[in-house]
């Protein structure tokens, strides 16, 4: 009996699919054996080393003019943009947002490549829980959340729900579905994994941990979790299975850029126990994503305030006086500086800059110095066609390798509806959590793009031997202070407090204020700073936070 589909079905279950067809396999001849192909061309993005030196050396022109401005926002990442978004919604339009780069979005922006857009860094948003009011409001504005934004289980636009399969794990030569290694682990591992999930579910049921984190319960028992490491906490629960430790460590590195031995158990558990979002048309653990990562969220925040944004503007000195906050801003394109005299300042740039930039703020500087920041490397590999899926579970959006120094890669074409494989970008992530942050930053800057790419290909080559020959261009992104690290004792140890507090003229709106970096926290801090500013200005508004 012959029938169309007959072998296609076989192909879907086995290796025959590699012969061709629509599953993304143009017949690409492998490269000849012997010498590896040369490192593909590409850019080095992220930290601008020369500019950094100039800023630190104070080698900048003094401001030539002073401009008065009612509200100034410094930094156009999610925090700054969310502040602008809320101000504009409340009808305030006499503010200015300064962004150092040519483009806004910070770590959530997208990147254009020959194979279409891909994430610069941030790439997904979990389904928002009921407390993430501002997130839901934005998603409803964008039409991605449909119907009542406060519904317990709203419907989401299918195109933004991560398509099946969401994630897979490579271990011992085989891809498995999901991130927990359910193949090749023993009964004890499974039992421990189950118990771990039960413990997390219990915290979830108590609604102990929340997003935004500021709404989390603060009982002494919960806060005590901040004083042990996630790793030690697991051991204290008699959870010692190596695969379980890998799994939890992976989660800490992936979300916080920090190993589980350095992450506070409060933060580690927060990751697993804070997610309460549900959807009418998706499983609760589905994430929202797009080919260019979280850039669609950036566009949603920006669209009402484009006229208020000035890019290519670097704030390098901040001083509070009686009547205004003076912000000195360098404009590299014009090689000159401007002084802004702002009635209100929202600082939405990373907090590690505070000791260097803020004048006469000893308390803030001391608090900022208690922070540590994780260095990250992102590599965007532009491939002419996708590497073959390999044995086991089919290609997913997020593809993770067990026992890897990296965090795996996401596939930019995963959310696209395409018949043919017209190439894609594989975005590879690596938090340099195996060394001290300072050593990591040193490695980021001193190693060449070629060296880093060699490491990337060596890592991914275990699963995709042909990847290097499929890669036609490769950008690396170096992020020296990518995110605040929620290390043991940090989150509830007081360092964040001065930044989370309100003051007459100055407030902070960066994910750093929450002590770890996710979209929801950055947006919350931005909206909170805007609402506090609106109160100072005496503007009436409906809160986006309750």
């Amino acid at each position, binding site marked *: 009996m012959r029938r*169309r589909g007959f072998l296609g079905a076989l192909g879907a279950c086995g290796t025959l699919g590699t012969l061709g067809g629509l599953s993304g396999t143009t017949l690409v001849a492998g490269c000849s054996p012997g010498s590896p192909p040369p490192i593909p061309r590409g850019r080095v993005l992220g930290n601008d080393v020369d500019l950094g030196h100039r800023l630190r050396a104070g080698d900048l022109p003094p401001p030539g003019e002073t401009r008065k401005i009612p509200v100034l926002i410094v930094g156009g990442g999610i925090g700054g943009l969310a502040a602008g978004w809320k101000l504009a919604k409340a009808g305030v339009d006499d503010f200015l947002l300064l962004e150092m780069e040519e483009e806004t979005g910070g770590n959530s922006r997208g990147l254009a490549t020959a194979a279409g857009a891909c994430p610069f860094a941030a790439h997904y948003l979990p389904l928002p829980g009921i407390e993430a009011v501002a997130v839901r409001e934005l998603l409803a504005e964008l039409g991605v959340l449909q119907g009542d934004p406060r519904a317990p289980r709203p419907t989401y636009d299918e195109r933004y729900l991560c398509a099946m399969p969401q994630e897979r794990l490579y271990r011992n030569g085989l891809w498995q579905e999901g991130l927990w290694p359910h193949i090749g682990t023993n009964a004890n591992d499974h039992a421990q994994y189950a118990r771990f999930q039960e413990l997390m579910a219990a915290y979830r049921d108590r609604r102990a941990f929340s997003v935004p984190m500021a709404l989390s319960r603060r009982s002494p028992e919960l806060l005590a979790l901040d004083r042990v490491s996630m790793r030690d906490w697991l051991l204290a629960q008699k959870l010692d299975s190596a695969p379980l430790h890998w799994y939890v460590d992976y989660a800490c590195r992936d979300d916080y850029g920090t190993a589980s031995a350095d992450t506070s158990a409060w933060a580690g558990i927060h990751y697993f126990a804070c997610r309460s979002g549900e959807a009418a048309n998706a499983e609760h653990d589905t994430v929202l994503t797009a080919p260019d990562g979280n850039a669609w969220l950036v566009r949603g925040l920006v669209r009402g305030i484009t006229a208020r944004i000035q890019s290519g503007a670097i704030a390098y000195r901040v001083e509070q006086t009686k009547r205004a906050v003076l912000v000195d801003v360098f404009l590299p394109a014009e090689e000159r500086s401007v002084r802004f005299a702002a009635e209100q300042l929202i600082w939405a740039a990373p907090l590690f800059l505070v000791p260097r930039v803020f004048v006469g703020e000893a308390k803030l500087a001391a608090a900022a110095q208690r922070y540590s920041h994780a260095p990250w490397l992102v590599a965007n590999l532009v491939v002419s066609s996708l590497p073959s899926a390999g044995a086991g579970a089919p290609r997913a959006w997020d593809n993770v390798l067990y026992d890897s120094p990296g965090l795996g890669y996401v596939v930019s074409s995963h*959310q696209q509806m395409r018949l043919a494989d017209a190439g894609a970008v594989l975005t590879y992530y690596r938090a340099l959590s195996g060394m001290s942050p300072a050593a990591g930053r040193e490695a980021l800057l001193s190693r060449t793009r070629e060296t880093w790419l060699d490491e990337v290909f060596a890592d991914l080559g275990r699963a995709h031997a042909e990847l290097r020959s499929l890669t036609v261009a490769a950008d690396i992104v170096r992020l020296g202070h990518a995110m605040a690290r929620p290390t043991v004792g940090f989150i509830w140890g007081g360092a964040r407090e001065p930044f989370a507090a309100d003051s007459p003229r100055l407030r902070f709106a960066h994910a750093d204020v929450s002590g770890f970096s996710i979209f929801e926290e950055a947006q919350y801090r931005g909206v909170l700073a805007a609402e506090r500013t609106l109160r100072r200005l005496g503007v009436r508004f409906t809160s986006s936070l309750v």
Partner: protein
Amino acid sequence: MQQALLASVFVVASCGLAYELIAGALASYVLGDSITQFSTVIGTYLFAMGVGSWFSRYIVRDLVGRFVRIELIIGVLGGFSAAALYFMFVWAPEPFKIALYLIVFLIGMLVGLEIPLIMRILKRDIAFKDVVSQVLTFDYLGALAVSILFPVLLVPHLGLVRSALLFGLLNVAVALWALWLFRTQLPAIAWLRGQGIAALALLAVAFAGAGEMTSLAETHLYADEIVHAESSPYQRIVVTRWKDDLRLHLNNNLQFSSRDEYRYHEALVHPALATLPGARRVLVLGGGDGLALREILKYPQVEAVTLVDLDPAMTRLFSTAPALTALNANAFASPKVKVVNADALVWLEESREQFDFVVVDFPDPSNFAIGKLYSAAFYRLLEKHLSATGLAVVQSTSPLYARQSFWCVVTTIESTGLVAAPYHALVPSFGEWGFVLVGRRAYAPPQEYPVATRFLTPALTPALFEFPKDMARVPAEVNQLNNQALVRYFEREWRHVIR
């Protein structure tokens, strides 16, 4: 002793020819164009034999030992040649040609060494003129035997993989026999015998397991003559012919048989288009064979048809090859037809055009990439391209073999607020096949067909919309991008059919 050696000449010669025929047949099966394949394979083989004969002069000592070794190598190499080439073609089609000629050359060279060696062994005992006459006689006899057995017995009953293994076994048997004949004259006989027995065992095991091996690989090959074969960047296109039956295979999946494709394409087009007297603009997604076009162009009211097919090789083939343009009534030559070689999905997202009738003829949802083309998101996109009274038809796999898959397509279409009218038709080469009409209001079958049909009648049509008990509706999830329910149903149901 003499008789025994002459018998082995017979066997050796037949083995040699057999490998050559097997390689030629294999090459023409998978590459098409049998004349070219046979003549290049035979040419390579004969040339390699010449090379082998020339090299035979350099073998001076231990003639029997060398002969035995060569026999063993030929046995293993030739025996596994077909299997190796099959698997090569299935899993690594690119270097297939190189491997083919390499194997043919190696076997040819070794066979070229054999006969001169036997002649020299025999020359020790009989006159040269007798050696030449006897050896060549048996050589040609062996060739005759195989050339008759090959098409009559071997290919139909054993298949290529097993035939090759059988001749491999014969080669090894000759080697072992020679070892026994010359057991007194050979130095390291135990070692050689060990090798021989190992080769024999290896081939015997492979022969026993060949059924599974071939069914794995041979399902990829076609019983019929290949009249066209090419690999485009997107797929492998193969057209076969058996008597008057033309068949198109894409990536080894049968797309149509010219004997009954009219049933499929009439069922695809007419139930919708016959109810749309005002249909002027038509869109075909997929369908690069032009057969749906042929049916659409029967309607005089249709002014423009846009056909979006990814693969220019397909539309080129079906607008130029005479046998195929005869089949699609030269549809691509019609001035009404515009061909767009683009990704249908990308094209749909970018285009703003609306159509009165849309044919959605995508491959079956056998993997996650294709599963997206059957998702609610896709049907929402499709709706944007339907005019107010427009209809679309979706080929939606077999409601009999993949029942839940079929109803999953229906459920998914309905979930987007569109009205679905599912129906089915029997297409013998596929079996019972399913389609779904998609529109914004309830559908009523046509009272008459204004165009010529071979299969459909107005009286029969309402019956196509009735589903017998074994195909009746079953509950199914909505196929969403984020659950890919359909691919899961489809995989499970077809796996069940295949077993």
